[in-house]
């Protein structure tokens, strides 16, 4: 498939030493577009550039930085590249806005997507492909350096919520970017903490991806062929996944509506013309854009669904996106006011609370002190990105339960029953915790020292929450399930 249109792929993902050729291609494409549909919009962008920076859109707070200023703005990849691989400097790779960077005529030359999917399936299933050792990623028990990894965006086309894995499709003709969430990897949806299961199929996501964590090198199988396509496939463990509204709004960004535009060509669509309001964002769309819009788009105003004709020129809006024909981006949701987004955010927050209270708060073990009668002490740091209310539940507790979990955060059968009762001996708050950490650390006395209670291993801790029994296929309940859980398996 890549053979059909290599230039398109390389625009966004080509390593930097190949950028010279790529830039030429981009320039050519841009030149064509500036003359065509994008010119008016770009002019408007220039006109509004000095006006305001997301005035009425709240920058939602991350737990570790309640003030609201983005505490974890993604920086340049600082992870050391794998020996022999091309050097990456992701921040220098320009964000590829499909609308802006591609012409419709080019897009129509692409073949249908089905063969790509077949290849992707083969990628995982075919054992004959030579194995690629993908090492050098984060160590167990150590949160990665700030800014490590690469930024990749795309539509979520495969989702394995139980094992917290999936695939993003960056473009309709490119191989999927299969990924697993790191145990401390965070998902945000509608501006609130979330889980893979909360994400609707097709939703456009922004992700920060690292090399696999130590011991997870084979979780997402790789082939030389795939790496030939792009070295970024090595970066297949996500530390962060965000939908557009989360990605932009928490960085103080919104969109100013410039109006509707009726597209032409073989698939004429109505488009919402917008320009960015607020700071420039690495890896984001920093220029005027056209998003497909039709009657399937949910438009929110005053916490209610309204017709798209309520969208008026000059409004500051937030959007969530998905794939549109010919690699355009289409709106799934448009929020016209803060209260509507706040309502959606609260629903997601509540869903997240329910999820974690039944599956328990994840973290990992920093230290262990065994005793010879089966109990001992364990020190746990909770992972970050959860709602603060959950950490507060732990802070207020004296007695907890703790069970072990895999890096997928899957616990074992009857996680409540197999959890060890624990009492808190000490609580510590770590200032300015690294991305992935909550900063909350507890030292626990446990009556059962489970085999999974080892430094760097993942645990889940039950706070003062109601008793639940999980569905059988969600926890690991057999040797077979355990083996299956170790590698990405396509549905």
């Amino acid at each position, binding site marked *: 498939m890549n053979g059909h249109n290599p230039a398109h792929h390389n625009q966004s993902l080509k390593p930097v030493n190949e950028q010279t050729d790529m830039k030429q291609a981009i320039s050519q494409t841009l030149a064509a577009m500036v003359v065509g549909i994008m010119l008016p919009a770009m002019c408007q962008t220039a006109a509004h550039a000095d006006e305001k920076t997301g005035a009425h859109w709240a920058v939602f707070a991350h737990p570790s930085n309640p003030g609201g200023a983005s505490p974890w703005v993604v920086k340049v990849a600082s992870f050391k590249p794998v020996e022999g691989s091309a050097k990456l400097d992701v921040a220098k790779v320009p964000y590829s806005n499909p609308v802006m960077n591609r012409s419709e005529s080019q897009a129509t030359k692409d073949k249908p997507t089905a063969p790509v999917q077949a290849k992707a399936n083969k990628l995982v299933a075919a054992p004959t492909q030579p194995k690629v050792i993908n090492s050098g990623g984060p160590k167990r028990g150590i949160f990665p350096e700030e800014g490590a990894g690469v930024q990749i965006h795309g539509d979520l086309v495969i989702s394995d919520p139980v094992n917290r894995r999936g695939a993003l499709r960056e473009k309709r003709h490119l191989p999927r970017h299969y990924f697993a969430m790191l145990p401390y990897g965070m998902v945000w949806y509608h501006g609130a903490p979330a889980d893979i299961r909360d994400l609707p199929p097709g939703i456009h996501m922004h992700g920060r991806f690292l090399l696999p964590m130590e011991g997870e090198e084979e979780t997402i199988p790789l082939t030389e062929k795939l790496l030939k396509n792009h070295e970024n496939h090595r970066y297949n463990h996500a530390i962060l996944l965000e939908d557009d509204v989360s990605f932009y709004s928490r960085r103080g960004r919104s969109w100013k509506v410039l109006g509707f535009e009726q597209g032409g060509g073989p698939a004429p669509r109505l488009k919402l013309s917008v320009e960015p309001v607020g700071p420039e964002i690495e890896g984001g769309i920093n220029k005027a854009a056209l998003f497909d819009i039709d009657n399937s788009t949910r438009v929110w105003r005053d916490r209610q669904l309204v017709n798209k004709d309520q969208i008026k020129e000059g409004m500051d809006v937030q959007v969530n996106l998905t794939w549109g024909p010919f690699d355009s981006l289409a709106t799934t949701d448009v929020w016209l006011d803060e209260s509507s987004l706040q309502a959606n955010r609260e629903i997601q927050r509540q869903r997240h609370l329910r999820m974690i209270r039944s599956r328990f708060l994840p973290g990992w073990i920093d230290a*262990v002190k*065994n*005793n*010879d*009668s*089966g*109990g001992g002490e364990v020190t746990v740091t909770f992972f970050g990105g959860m709602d603060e209310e959950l950490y507060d539940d732990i802070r207020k507790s004296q007695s907890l339960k703790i*069970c*072990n979990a895999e890096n997928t955060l899957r*616990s*074992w*059968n*009857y996680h409540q*029953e*197999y959890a*060890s*009762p624990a009492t808190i001996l000490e609580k510590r708050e770590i200032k300015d915790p690294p991305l992935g950490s909550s900063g909350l650390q507890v030292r626990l006395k446990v*009556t*059962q*020292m*489970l*085999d*999974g*209670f*080892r*430094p760097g*291993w993942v645990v889940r801790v039950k706070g003062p929450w109601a008793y639940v029994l999980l569905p059988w296929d969600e926890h690991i309940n057999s*040797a077979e399930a*355990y083996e299956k859980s170790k590698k990405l398996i396509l549905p």
Partner: protein
Amino acid sequence: MMLTRMLLSLVVFIVVLQSVKAAGSLGIDAQQFIKSHCVKCHDAKTQEGKFRLDNLSADFTDPQVAEKWNEVVFRINSAEMPPEDEPQPSAEEIGRMAEYLTGKIREGAASRMARRGLLEHYRLSREEYAHTVFDLLGVVYDVEAPGAFNEDPRWHGFDRIGAMLATAPSHIDRYFKAADTVIELASLGGEPPSRVQRKAVGEGKRYLAQPGEGWHCFDVRKPGRYRVRMRLSSLPAFTGRAPRLALWHIEHKKPVWGRYLVADESKPETIEFEMLFNQGGYRLLNYARTQKHPNGGIQRFRHEEIDASRPLASMRGGFKSNKTKIVDELGRPVMPTLLIDWVEIEGPLMTETVRANRKGLMPEKDAPEEILACLKRFAQRAWRRPVSDAEIDPYIQFIAEEKKAGESFPSAYKSALSGMLVARSFFNLEEGSPGENRQEVNDFELASRLSYFLWSSMPDEELFAAARNGELHEPEQMAKAFDRMIADPKIERFLNSFPHQWLQLHRVGMFQPDPNLYPEYGPWLEESMLLETKSYFAEMFRENLPLREAVDSNWTMLNARLAAHYGLSAPQDLELARVTLPPESGRGGILTHASVLSLTSDGTRHRPVHRGAWLSEVILARTPTPPPPNVEPLEPVASDQPKRTIRAQLESHATQAACASCHARIDPLGLAFENFDAIGQWRETERVEGGTGANPPVDASGKLPEGKAFSGPAEFKKLLAEDDERLAKAFVEQLATYALRRLVTVDDREGIDKIVSSSMPGGYRLQDLVRGLVLSDLFRKR
């Protein structure tokens, strides 16, 4: 006014006279004494200690009345009464009163004896039943099996008190069932073949068992003697704690055999031993607290087959990582771990003793004379007395009728034998004779009394022979029998059973300590506690040590588990051994054994009042008055209040005068051991759940009722040991209760005093006291 006063005085005088009317037949001096010093508190209105003297009868022929007056003598003599803050009688008055009452009690003795039945039955406890059928026929009968015998009722720990062991129709049903089983198991038709069962874990496999877990290794279908062989490795924890191996009876939920073992995984050890087995399934167990979930469904500690070629050190995480850890981060076993290869059991094995006991039991042929001879021989041993032909006749008739009904001779004969085991002469000890008011037991009764006292079972042939010769009651014969019996291995039954009953050790673990508060508590610790106390008693008996060492000594019996519990170093081979205690251990003597200190606890905290009551009852043979009903329990310390010790709470609790007087006598005996928590661990501060502030320091000081002060357990024990005559009297009273199977009464007091006096020269040594009882008049008295 004057007249009114006179009238009032007259009324008071009449009331006082009325109040002591019951003591009307007492002498004037005695009446006056009671009026002056007792009635004020022990009348209908106050009833201090629930004890009334205003209406106490003076009929000294009534055993209960005599007992109460005897209590009065004790209280006056020990200066407990009248209380310190009341006018005190002179020493002369006290002496006169005590002597007068003692005389009256003695006068009534003959009448009280005469009131007893001519024939007394003392039913065998189930433990004695089991020993008896084993010594009679070599049969192992499982008295604890479901549907066998119920647990015997206890009186202050003793489960062989005749008055408690009534015989109900349900007992007879069970005796019928037991008798059939016993005769069946006796295999009168021929010895059962011995066979070998071997269970291996599997080719290339071993069975891993962490503490509390084990492997179902064999089943015993026919109870009896078996030889067991096993091969296994036994790895200590990274701390050095060695596994305790146990063979566990699955149905009874208790171990029947155990030992410590250390054997590397590359050098498994083969162990062999022989012992008696009840029917049932057996597990080879890593003996410790089980980690089984309360609902029984989920076990967290590991018990699984593993690959024998895989080193244990490599077993970290992976599948089953939700189970407990096998090895730590350095590859060392986290907990004591067993690796079992195979177990083999061979049997049932026959011994010469059993063969001898069964010899001549089954007639060679169906001939009347031979049947009579066989049955009579059996009956005389089973009923432990001479048996006349007339007593055998019904059984011969029975056999004939059974045969007539179509039964085979062997079957009919066995039924007759079963019948003899449900005769009252078998399951009762009979003392006395119908139509004869005997004051003493005869020689056969004496033989049984002696053998059930020391062996918890029937007399052996030598004892029967001495009884048949009419010599047993002679002191030399009794002494000879005593020496022989304590040298016999069966004396272990006394050394196990008596301290268990005397010290009420059945209460150990009755309220299982809360695992959250005492996570280190487990069945092996509990058993070790019992082993310490029983083996301490056995050591005192074998070495004939002075009784004061029961309460104060510088040694004890420890195994590795208990040593860890006490914070002491373990004996070299980890098994139970006598060790000298360092002075700073705070221990020495039964009173500081973890068993005794924990048996009065309620599972969450120690209970000083219960400790005091136990000590008073068991060590001093003074049973305190039971508490009044509806006493408010101690409330937990409120979360906003400063932490307070139980002692501090008790002191503010016992504010009522009626309570305070009793508690003043009981509490110091328990408070002396405040340095020991609910499972007998030494402490300087008391852990208090709830409340604010630090855990408060303990205060183990106090004052004995007679006024002597002590600062802690060591001084208290010394004070107690100083009065070794008092200890000896109390001990002999308990011993006599066990031996005579009845409550000791005021009429036994003199006999007890004599036994104690006779052992005074050696310093009241334990074996001397037991021998003294056996050779005493009291032992022969009915």
